[in-house]
């Protein structure tokens, strides 16, 4: 009898966990969407590698929305973590490429100036 009671409690507990589940990751969804937008505004689509990560982030957001609709919030939250990481990487890559281009330009300007002065 004791064991049976324990088993019922076990079933009850498991069902409760399944019904309650993880909350809908609204904040993570908004954050991921904002990061994608930020990366795009930051020029991520001008660089192929960064653009790829923007796409991966967008795909993941789409996937996460389906998972939310299916009630699989825990998985959606992790998918949104992926999306956010991809969006942040896209932004970082765009910034890196711009900084490298600026550095090359500045170096070229110095070279030109020195050449002109040595004429």
């Amino acid at each position, binding site marked *: 009898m004791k064991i049976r009671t324990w*088993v019922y409690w076990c079933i009850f507990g498991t069902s409760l966990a399944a019904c309650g589940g993880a909350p809908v990751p609204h904040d993570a969804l908004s954050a991921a969407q904002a990061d994608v937008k930020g990366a795009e505004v930051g020029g991520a689509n001008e660089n192929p590698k960064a653009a790829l990560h923007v796409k991966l982030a967008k795909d993941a957001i789409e996937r996460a929305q389906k998972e939310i609709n299916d009630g699989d919030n825990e998985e959606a939250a992790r998918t949104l973590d992926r999306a956010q990481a991809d969006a942040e990487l896209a932004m970082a890559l765009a910034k*890196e490429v711009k900084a490298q281009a600026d*550095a090359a330009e500045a170096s070229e300007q110095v070279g030109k100036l020195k050449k002109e002065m040595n004429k």
Partner: protein
Amino acid sequence: MARSTSLLKLCVSGTSTVHSLLIGASLSALLMACGGAAVAPQELLDARTAYAEAAKGPAADLAPAQLDTAKQSLDTAQRTFEEDGASQKTKDLAYVAQRRAEIAAAEGGREKAERKRSASDKDFKTTQIEGLQKTKEQLAHEKAARADAEKKAAIAMASLAEIAKVKEETRGVVITLSGSVLFATNQSSLLPIARDKLDQVAAALTSQGFKSIVVQGYTDSRGNAAENDTLSLKRAQSVRDHLVSRGLPSEKVTAEGLGASKPVADNGTADGRAENRRVEIVVTPEK
């Protein structure tokens, strides 16, 4: 998920099943223990590689905070793998860890490039300042050289004024030497004293610099005009040749005989005729 469902079924089926559950759990635990050497998912392998590469690059010095975040993400993925094996959660965490490592690498690369640009900007400014200083020095040097040349020219003109009449006209600087000082009557060869004077003229012209020189010979109106033209040309050529022999560039110095064509005084008087017998050296200055 499938495992939880079968566990529930086992629970519902009653006491006897509890034993089966316990046996199943034990077996499962045993399997997990045996599977401790489970193969890490590709995502985790990629994350490890990405972190190792980022740690070797500029991120180690230039983006340590981002690299530390990447390390923490990797550790979390690693722990999850040890607890859950190659689950979807492990894969997701490893995926994020890989991205964090790549972000750290990109941040390191950006910082490195920004420092390089900053150094170039500094170099540009320094070079510009050096250039301005150099130009300033050059200008000062040129100014001094010009002042020196002007001084020399002034001295040369002053010394010329002692032996000849010097006048600035629209055609250039005209140095007029009296024919009686340069030549004997009806002769075109220079007198010894004339050579000394012309040496001074040559020295003055050399120090002053010029674009071109025309030596023009003139006579008074007495005698045959054609002979006067010939004599005036010969005299101009004698002066021209002497100046060239003293170092003036031959291609810049020419001679012409103008006879009695342009008198500067009255040919009716002896003094006037003496003034008309002359050689004019017309100097076109350098621009």
